């Protein structure tokens, strides 16, 4: 058991290292010279050299990579003397466009993304699992067809389109909601709720659609298995069979998926945040792409990758507790 967990943790660390290496490689090889960008139009070759030295861009690839990696754990200093810039650990890089450390920029935007992710997750778990169960239990009826049609629409509608549609209908046409604004819960609870309602719904719709399709398939699969027949033969009635025997095996795959999806959202809901103007990590990424602020893009990519990998690992470990069959197989 401990060995299994240890192996999973090591594998996750390996994947993280590989991801950081690939990300670094991409920006090292493919992107235009950041020194030229920082230098601007009135640039002399001496100034470029100076910036390169300051950023450590004159060093070979492995040394730069090592500086970046160690910066995450111990922090690092760009340049020397009076012009030196300190970047405290965990240092994910430094944006010379905004003169801020990438870590600070991300931390400042995190609360919005977390709020968005939690609210949407609650909604989509409820709707996705509820819809999927309803559909499976009432298989072949109008309920089933209705839920599955909605789900099909949900996975086919791009979320930016739903976002625009909803915003146009509810805000511009019907005027039921105000324009979403960046307020905290403490400042104005009602406006806060109204501002997050549409983003929550839009995000949740897509995921709920996907989850209900999976839950339906899994429940129908489970209901057809032998242990279900045994449970019914023992004289247990429908709802109990469903709750005690069908739900757990049907929902374990959902746990894996949920771990990854939720972690992915913590790294920023790029599209939803952009459309609704929510100042989260996703908006930060989108803005940085528009401004070509590479240290930020790289930092966010790494963070998002790390979140997903860690979530994946946690889910795998949780599995060994949730599903006894996994334990047996790995032993």
């Amino acid at each position, binding site marked *: 058991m401990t060995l299994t967990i240890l192996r999973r943790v090591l594998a996750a660390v390996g994947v993280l290292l590989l991801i950081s290496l690939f990300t670094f490689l*991409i920006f090292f090889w493919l992107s235009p010279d950041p020194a030229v960008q920082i230098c601007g139009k009135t640039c002399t070759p001496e100034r470029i050299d100076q910036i390169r030295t300051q950023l450590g861009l004159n060093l070979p690839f492995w040394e730069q990579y090592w500086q970046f990696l160690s910066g995450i754990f111990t922090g690092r200093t760009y340049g020397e003397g009076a012009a030196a810039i300190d970047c405290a650990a965990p240092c994910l890089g430094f944006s010379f466009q905004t003169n801020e450390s990438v870590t600070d920029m991300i931390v400042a935007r995190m609360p919005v993304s977390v709020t968005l992710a939690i609210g949407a997750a609650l909604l989509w778990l409820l709707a996705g699992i509820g819809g999927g169960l309803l559909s499976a239990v009432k298989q072949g009826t109008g309920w089933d067809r209705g839920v599955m049609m909605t789900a099909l629409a*949900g996975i086919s509608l791009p979320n930016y389109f739903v976002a625009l549609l909803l915003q146009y209908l509810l805000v511009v046409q019907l005027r039921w909601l105000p324009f979403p604004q960046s307020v905290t819960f403490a400042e104005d609870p009602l406006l806060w709720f109204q501002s997050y309602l549409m983003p929550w719904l839009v995000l949740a719709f897509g995921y709920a659609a996907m989850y209900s399709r999976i839950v339906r398939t899994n429940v129908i699969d489970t209901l057809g298995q032998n242990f279900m027949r045994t449970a019914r033969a023992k004289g247990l009635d429908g709802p109990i069979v469903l709750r005690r025997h069908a739900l757990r095996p049907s929902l374990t795959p959902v746990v894996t998926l949920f771990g990854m999806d939720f972690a992915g959202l913590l790294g920023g809901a790029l599209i939803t945040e952009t459309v609704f103007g929510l100042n989260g990590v996703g908006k930060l990424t989108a803005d940085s792409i528009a401004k070509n602020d590479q240290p930020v893009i790289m930092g966010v990519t790494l963070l998002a990758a790390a979140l997903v990998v860690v979530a994946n690992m946690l889910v795998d470990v949780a599995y060994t507790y949730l599903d006894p069959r996994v334990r047996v197989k790995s032993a």
Partner: protein
Amino acid sequence: MSTVPSELAVETEPKGVLPTGSAPTPARRVITTLRKSPAVVVSVCIIVFIVLLAVFAPVLSAITGWGPYDYDPSAIDSDLGGIPIGPLGGISAEHWLGVEPGNGRDILVRVAYGARVSLMIAVSATLITTTFGVIMGMIAGFFGGLADQVISRVMDFLMAFPSLIFMIALLSALPAGNRPALLVLVLSIFGWPYTARVIRGQTMSLRNSEFVEAARASGARPLKIAFREVLPNLRGTIIVLATLAVPSYIGTEAGLSFLGVGVMPPTPSWGQMISTAVGWYAVDPMFFLIPGTFLFLTVFSFTVLGDNLRRVLDAGDAAS
């Protein structure tokens, strides 16, 4: 997020689609069954329509008299910040689906050219990932051992990757240039494991079936067994996987273009049109509604077709 290809992984669990040993479902029976479903008929009609729109985009451009890059200042009201003149985003005999606010480009013609770009990218990526995925999946499943170990590890790594974020990072770092080709490349790199995984699983179960044993006993070489015995039995699965891959790539491409890292202006693409429309949605909703509807209908139709193909190919196997 519905634009991530990883969704495909969930939709295409090998569950069910297991043609273990039975004869491949005759194409005629599949078509007969599918024709009875109104949803499928409508979907196929929509797909055919979109494909025709894409193929004949230049003809359409000649008929309407507007190229995809032609500005029409007479169709927009420069006093009102450039919103289209006339109701519903400037729909008129001149511009059948209205014009883009700000510059007056014809929406219908741009949607048609956008369909070209979208379909070209999605179909190319599907061809590449399907071919590569089937080859890799068959090698891993058929030969097992070291080959399987290596291929499976690479697939695990690629699938553990948060692919959308990485695609964005990669595309934003890459210099401009042939954007559609880059998109195909990036989609393919992250897309093939989803095909390969399913193919690998099915190849493994086919490898132990009686007819493969028989072929092996009669002295057939491994390559011949793979192509003559195993591959024909994977046909149904490959068709279903490819049909479902197309909408997922269309969606991903549109999402990437929406975020500004996909197809670059002035080349028209649906995602990019909707992205431009964000600034105009309150005054000119038709500008996001029209490309959005085309995008939705295309993805929806391919998904309905893929879902039904899977159902029918399953049932066909179960029945025989």
